[in-house]
């Protein structure tokens, strides 16, 4: 049944089959990921044509100039970190609450977390523009006699928009992690004399670390590339790297510098993710956790 010729033919056929199965995906990756990235790389060592755009050149000037725009990078980094931590602080208790509910109620509550995201992301963000604009919350605050407060077009507004839009990405991995927690460990910890806080710090937190890191990464990565929320809720005053990139390509028309900045952004994100993986392996996470 398995003579050598048939086996070799079998292998050849299965190789062809494999290649055929992989072909569409490979084509997509090549033409729509690799080639555009190569174009970016080529542009990034080029020069800006006088009226904007690209002229061929071979120079590292654009990369060397990146540190001068470090302000936008650093701004994005700290706001992305702050946003992630905020999502964490808001999302952890919610995830814990959800994980401690009973069966059907829990599923329903989980779905309720997702439903708002069936409206358009832009509409949700626009709703916040109205709420934070002068006819929204500030009007109420002023009516209550607390004086005037400006909320729209501030970093605070952008933060609110971030938490609002990225919360589920944080809540789901946390929930999964907490849900798998064996309550007997908590009981044991209390039996051994640890208080609530102690139990939380020494049992719950470490065991939910996987979910925590997953959620953090799921929020941080897209947040670094965010463009719409700062544009709508920041009024042109809050500038993420995403906004800077759009400006570089669609206003200043400095493609080489924009390309260098894009590659810089990708590198920064890669570094952050590597950090996560290193932290994760340090905690000796045995199970492969998919990125989602």
């Amino acid at each position: 049944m398995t003579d050598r010729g048939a086996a070799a033919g079998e292998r050849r056929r299965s190789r062809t089959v494999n290649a055929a199965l992989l072909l569409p995906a490979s084509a997509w990756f090549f033409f729509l990921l690799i080639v555009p990235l190569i174009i970016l790389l080529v542009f990034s060592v080029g020069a800006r044509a006088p009226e904007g755009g690209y002229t061929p050149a071979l120079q590292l000037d654009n990369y060397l100039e990146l540190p001068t725009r470090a302000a936008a990078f650093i701004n994005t980094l700290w706001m992305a970190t702050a946003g992630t931590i905020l999502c964490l602080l808001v999302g952890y208790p919610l995830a814990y609450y959800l994980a401690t509910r009973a069966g059907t109620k829990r599923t329903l509550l989980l779905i309720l977390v997702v439903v708002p995201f069936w409206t358009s992301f832009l509409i949700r963000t626009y709703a916040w523009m109205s709420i934070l604009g002068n006819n929204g919350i500030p009007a109420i605050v002023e009516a209550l006699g607390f004086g005037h407060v400006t909320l729209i077009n501030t970093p605070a507004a952008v933060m609110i928009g971030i938490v609002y839009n990225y919360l589920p990405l944080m809540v789901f991995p946390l929930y999964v992690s907490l849900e798998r927690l064996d309550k007997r460990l908590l009981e044991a910890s209390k039996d051994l004399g640890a208080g609530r806080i102690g139990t939380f710090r020494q049992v719950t937190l470490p065991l939910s670390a996987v979910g925590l890191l997953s959620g953090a990464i799921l929020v941080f990565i897209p947040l670094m590339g965010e463009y719409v929320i700062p544009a709508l809720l920041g009024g042109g005053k809050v500038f993420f790297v995403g906004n800077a990139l759009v400006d570089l390509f669609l206003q200043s028309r400095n493609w080489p510098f924009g390309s260098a900045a894009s590659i810089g952004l990708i590198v920064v994100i890669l570094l952050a993710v590597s950090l996560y993986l290193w932290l994760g392996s340090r905690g000796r996470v045995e199970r492969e956790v998919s990125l989602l």
Partner: protein
Amino acid sequence: MTLGTGRPDRGPAVDRAGRWVDGAFRLEAVLIYLFLYVPILLVVIFSFNAGERTGELRGLSMRWYEYAIGDAFAMGALRNSIGVALWTSLLATTFGTLAALALQRVPRVVRAVFDVLIYIAIIIPGIVIGISTLIFFVNLFGFVNPWLAYVWSVGGLGEPPVVQKGLHTVIAAHVLFTMAIVMVLVRARLSGMDRSLTEASFDLFATPLRTFFQVTLPQLAPAIIAGALLAFTFSFDDFIIANFTAGPGQPTLPMYIFNSIRRGITPEVNAIAAMVLMVTVTSLVIVALIYRRQARQGGAFGASEGAPILEGDVA
């Protein structure tokens, strides 16, 4: 395994000091749900605004719904979004699943290469994808169009076709990201799958194709469906990539909305959003009812009951 004790799912065992903490958690959850839903409610309420602008409520009426349905541009954008999302979902799910299957049986090097590609495709920001894909397409068309013109003129075929940006370029750009996600989901599911079933199927002389359709595919179904849904959602809601890669006359719904926001939004946009929300909530409810009915009738999906299909029991 839930947070109950060894007993089956009957909710947490409550200890006395915990009641206060539990109350605090409950309060926080309520506040968060309010936080999540108040903007949505505002969107829906203002869609019934009889006035001209979204900011001030001036009585209730359905006029903006009528206007929205009659607005050719808005409805066109909506149709474009749905079309793009459907195609994206279809292509991403198909290509991604096929690739995930193939990746199981290729040499480790190939697998590693694809791991890296998937990785990059997922972490690369939408902005960068949008811009770089745009430049790629424009340059591509710059080569292809003169060539087409040449071929057509040589062949005496009349007006040569001109390739331009359009919905197809949006679909292409969307498929890249969503296909990577489908691959991640399906591969995760594959790695956790029970091999004994496939082996049993082969032992019983089923052909590979038959095994695939009757054993593997049903087991993969949850991951494939989840991937398809995610792909659809992402594509439908995406603004950045569509903004760069779409053609001039064919905006997607998010593009249409963003341009309206720039120019001063009318409650028409609220009406459209409310309609979309209604449709999706209704379909979700229907799906949930069907799922529950099938689960009660013995589980048509065949997946091992109780094991979460995703991290979290949500399709």
